[in-house]
């Protein structure tokens, strides 16, 4: 048995790197979150005051809410768009592989590039979307997509949905591929329409794919930082000021390392809490059915 345990020496390099540059930083973040550290000089202990400030000001509660709401919008939309394209492409083998790769292409690009291109698409005067609407005779629908506080969050979300539809579509296509051929065939023989087959035969069998897709996109979306950073900088009027934007702003805009650390810990707890809850709820539902 001693020989078996000696295998754990193999984990040493990985654990060293992760310990030094991941675990150690998290512990430090927590330590710093209890201080008013400004980046240089002495770090003054302030106890839980940073956390008290976060939970007593409406501003931070709003940012937490905004982060969660943004995630709900993006994840639900991605599930629907991915399912739609996957259900269609599953029935169209001729164009399946090409379309899957084409839809996945935006996910290969960086948030920075996507953010820039969409910032220009959204721009009020000469932006691609408003000009296209005007050319199509739909000038009445022109909007200040990123400048209107009521719209900005949805515009940012739309960009993210555009980016990752190919990702969820690929996951669902893999799920469809795992459904036995006979099931669709049986449905066809019974005279079920395409929609009925999707709704009553395929969708219930896609449970595991939906679980995976929702969990991956939730974690990914909660981490959103770059898109609003490039597109709106958190504006207008704080409409897209996600928690992540405030963390970086406190850190490198104002050098409030202590307070940024407290926000980071709150963020970490939210991400882990959501991941844990989702894992439990979705897996339980899967096991029940």
């Amino acid at each position: 048995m001693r020989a078996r345990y000696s295998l754990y020496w193999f984990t040493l390099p990985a654990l060293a790197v992760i310990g030094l540059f991941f675990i150690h930083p998290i512990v430090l973040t927590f330590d710093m979150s209890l201080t008013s550290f400004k980046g240089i000089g002495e770090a003054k202990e302030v106890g839980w005051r940073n956390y008290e400030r976060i939970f007593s000001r409406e501003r931070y509660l709003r940012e937490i809410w905004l982060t969660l709401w943004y995630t709900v919008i993006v994840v639900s939309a991605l599930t629907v768009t991915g399912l739609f394209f996957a259900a269609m492409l599953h029935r169209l083998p001729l164009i399946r592989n090409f379309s899957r790769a084409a839809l996945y292409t935006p996910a290969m690009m960086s948030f920075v590039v996507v953010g820039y291109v969409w910032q220009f698409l959204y721009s009020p005067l000469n932006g691609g979307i408003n000009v296209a609407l005007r050319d199509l005779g739909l000038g009445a629908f022109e909007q200040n997509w990123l400048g209107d506080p009521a719209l900005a969050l949805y515009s940012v979300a739309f960009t993210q949905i555009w980016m990752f539809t190919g990702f969820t579509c690929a996951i669902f296509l893999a799920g469809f591929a795992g459904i036995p051929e006979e099931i669709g065939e049986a449905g066809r023989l019974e005279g079920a329409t395409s929609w009925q087959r999707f709704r009553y035969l395929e969708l219930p069998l896609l449970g595991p794919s939906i679980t995976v897709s929702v969990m991956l996109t939730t974690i990914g979306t909660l981490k959103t930082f770059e898109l609003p950073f490039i597109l709106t900088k958190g504006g207008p009027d704080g409409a897209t000021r996600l928690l992540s934007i405030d963390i970086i702003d406190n850190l490198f805009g104002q050098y409030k390392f202590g307070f940024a650390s407290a926000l980071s810990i709150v963020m970490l707890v939210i991400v882990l809490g959501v991941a844990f809850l989702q894992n439990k709820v979705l897996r339980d539902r899967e096991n029940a059915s």
Partner: protein
Amino acid sequence: MSLSDAQTATRAGTGPDWDLLRRRGKSLLVHGVVLALVAIMLLPLVYMVMMSFKTSTEIAQDPLGLPDSLYWGNYMAALSSMGYVRSVLNSMGITISVIVVVVFAGAMAAYPLARLQNRISRLIVMVMALGLATPNFVTITPIYVIFRDLGLLDSYLGIVLAFAALKLPLAVFFYTSFIAAIPIELEEAARLDNCNNWQIFWHVIRPLLAPVTATLSLFVMIMVWNDFIYPLLLLTDKDKLTVMIAVYKFVGNTGIDPTKLFPAAVLGSLPLLIMFAVFQRKIMAGATAGAVK
């Protein structure tokens, strides 16, 4: 043969087969509609490429029209002042170093985790899961402070280690599920020949890991190439910038100039898009394989 096919077959002798024609037409229509939707999804990319070839007057006067001719001036300007070639080399060098660290440390760590199921393995796997879920801006504050104190700010070594810590959990998950599927009999034969753990890992396990290493490398490359926060905050020397930071510094964040934005966006994405075109199957397979596990 399905029932409806059989029905059309019996009716086929009695004049034009309207049912078949109707189904053919419907199928054509559905293909057309879905392809059109896919094309719409690609429009922003078409827009990006098209805009990069327009002069500033063309952009102002006809924002959506095709350029009169392929105007390369924007690219010339971007190439000469954004430090593109240097930044591509930096990104490639950093990517390759991260891949080397992640592949070696990841495969080694995965071996015991795949073979020993006990509390220690579960604990290590939990730490890795924590690593996968943690947003990188949560750890960036202390990493910045640690790097400053160790003199690792603005160094290739620092950014490589920071990226490696970020991507190692993924590598460990990839390798663990792969190694777990390797029959243990292979190892037992080697153990009878008095091979030690390291020899078994190196001579029996490692040679089998090539396919998963290839997929993993592609994923690490995509993530490192596109990452923004780490290089933005940890590198400032303009000779060490990665591609995305070069794009960001070149375009700026206020009063954006489209003749700079679009060529920089194309140049920034081009290497990965070429990679995607070449390794499309491998990347798509990896994306879903990683998801299904």
